[in-house]
């Protein structure tokens, strides 16, 4: 192996294509040859210089503007964006004659397609609305939701009364938002999500993408909301209709419940888990949605469960509303830390056995055992576990039923019957899940 050969193979040393044997031979020669060593050292120095010094480049805002163009293109895509086509002069006359016929054909096709395929018409409407939303800075919404206090933000109860739920969002970089109802608030301050539940004694902290508001997150971005409806309109499970009345455009989407309903327990516990109808009202002038309503089917009844009463666009939102202010004596529990605690969780048993251990822990006032099933409480370092034990003091488990799954819930429900200290009997379904890396059972509530 001579020096010239080495110099010719220098490119290979910068690629991963050499076999270990070849590399060894080359480096062995380089190590033993002053000339080649200097050559390689010089080239490595230059390579390092080039790779670390040439970092211009794009101007501030270019990336955002390109993304903006992609979105615009995406929205206009189905409407057929402008395409410039070079044209021979002799074709001009033919084009004029043809254009009359083409226009008539397109108009007829559009009418027929719109009439025969409402999904296409809905998509066009949504695309126009999405274009109108591109410049949005903030949004505020007020909903009325049939739900229960302190329950998850996305929980609905068709037989319950209406509670107010409010949402604020700014579309800055990073975006910030807040959603709250009686007894529960979820805040994303640009870095983290916080879930505050009144009386729980702790605040849960998760990543910006965490699912504390579950399906309600769709309301955080009206553009995404409409995108999702666009997907629904395309799917076979949804039908849609467009009406026009008094300067408003009304889009109605009928969707079937999602999830496993071999047991109908979770049916109608959320919009996604309901046979539902979603009605959006758009202003014809601005093409922005002004209100919406969700109704769910319960037997033969149609029950309104969500009413979006008010949407305000681009109104100033006080920064204090979107800032998390910790309170003394209320610990903030990082959700990520639950994984380590889940190591202690209870596994290799059935959900019914885990439910029994939970009620045994309550009967025996066993904080340690309870902590293994309620890891959040254990992490908080608060007296929340003791508070749980106190509030259930004196109850007695009478019976556990067969575990079942229902709807979109990723865990099991275990039916229970309790004897209360008053002598009354109480029935419910304990929700347990083990979709964590350790497959350990956690008590997740229930109703």
């Amino acid at each position, binding site marked *: 192996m001579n020096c010239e050969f080495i110099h010719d193979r*220098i*490119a*290979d040393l910068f690629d991963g294509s050499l076999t270990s044997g070849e590399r060894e031979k080359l480096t062995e020669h380089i190590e033993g040859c002053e000339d080649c060593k200097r050559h390689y050292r010089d*080239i490595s120095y*230059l390579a390092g210089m*080039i790779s670390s*010094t040439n970092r211009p*480049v*794009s101007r501030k805002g270019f990336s955002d503007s*390109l993304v903006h163009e992609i979105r615009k293109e995406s929205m206009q895509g189905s409407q057929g964006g402008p395409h410039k086509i070079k044209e021979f002069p002799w074709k001009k006359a033919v084009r004029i004659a043809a254009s009359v016929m083409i226009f008539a054909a397109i108009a007829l096709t559009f009418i027929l397609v719109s009439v025969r395929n409402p999904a296409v018409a809905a998509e066009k409407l949504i695309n126009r609305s999405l274009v109108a939303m591109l410049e949005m800075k903030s949004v505020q919404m007020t909903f009325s939701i049939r739900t229960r206090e302190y329950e998850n933000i996305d929980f609905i109860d068709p037989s319950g009364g209406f509670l107010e739920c409010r949402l604020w969002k700014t579309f800055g970089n990073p975006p910030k938002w807040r959603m709250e109802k009686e007894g529960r608030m979820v805040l994303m301050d640009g870095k983290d999500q916080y879930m505050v539940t009144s009386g729980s004694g702790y605040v849960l902290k998760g990543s910006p993408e965490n699912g504390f508001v579950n399906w309600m997150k769709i309301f955080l971005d009206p553009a995404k909301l409409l995108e999702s409806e666009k997907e629904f309109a395309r799917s076979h499970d949804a039908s849609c209709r467009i009406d026009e009345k008094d300067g408003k455009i009304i889009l109605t989407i009928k969707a079937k419940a999602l999830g496993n309903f071999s047991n109908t327990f979770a049916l109608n516990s959320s919009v996604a888990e309901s046979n539902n109808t979603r009605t959006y009202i758009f202003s014809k002038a601005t093409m922005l949605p002004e209100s919406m309503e969700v109704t769910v089917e319960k037997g033969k009844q149609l029950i309104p469960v969500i009413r979006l009463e008010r949407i305000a666009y681009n109104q100033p939102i006080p920064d204090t509303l979107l800032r998390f202010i910790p309170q003394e004596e209320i610990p903030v529990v990082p959700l990520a830390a639950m994984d380590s605690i889940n190591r202690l969780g209870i596994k290799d048993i059935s959900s019914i056995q885990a439910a029994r251990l939970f009620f045994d822990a309550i009967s025996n006032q066993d904080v340690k055992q309870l902590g293994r099933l309620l890891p959040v409480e254990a992490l908080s370092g608060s007296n929340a576990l003791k508070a749980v034990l106190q509030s259930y003091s004196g109850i007695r488990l009478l019976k556990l039923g067969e575990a079942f799954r229902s709807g979109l819930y990723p865990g099991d429900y275990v039916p229970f019957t309790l004897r209360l200290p008053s002598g009354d009997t109480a029935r419910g379904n304990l929700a347990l899940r083990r979709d964590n890396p350790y497959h350990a059972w956690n008590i997740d509530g229930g109703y």
Partner: protein
Amino acid sequence: MSTDIQRFPQSAIEFELFVGKQLEGFVRHAYSRLGNIEDAEDVVQDVILKVFRDRHSLRCISKPLNYIHRMISNSCLDLIRRNATRETFIRVSLREPKQGIEEPVETSMMLSEDAMRVTIMLENLPEDQAIVIRLRLIEEMSFADIAEVTSSPVTTVKSRFTYGINKLRSGFRVKKEAYDEL
């Protein structure tokens, strides 16, 4: 580098993520060919929007990164041909300082001067050699991927790299010695 994306992004969101990750590399590539950041951004924007529109018909392209680099390369050549002459340019961007470590002023200045010299020499290399060096050392593409982007055999790509880097080395040593003597 290009092997981690094996499928042409189809949805708008996938596409945005893909572009967000690769955008600087695309602009650097165009800039190195054109020497003008506005032109470079225009070329990249046109190419990106074109492939976005055509994404459904491009779904069978197994290496979208290479494909887009090739389109950028071709668009730059078209623009250069249209403009007939290409202005020579000098781009100077100093090495990013390492956080928490401050180099002595003298060393820092020396590196800056070296960087400037290398940059100028790179600009004066034949285009086909300079582009291979940039794609390999700055965009960290393999020679096989560069061959795909430049529509040349791998052996040719490697030769261009070797010729180019050896020329840089010779020129750099001569210039450095001359400067050091001053």
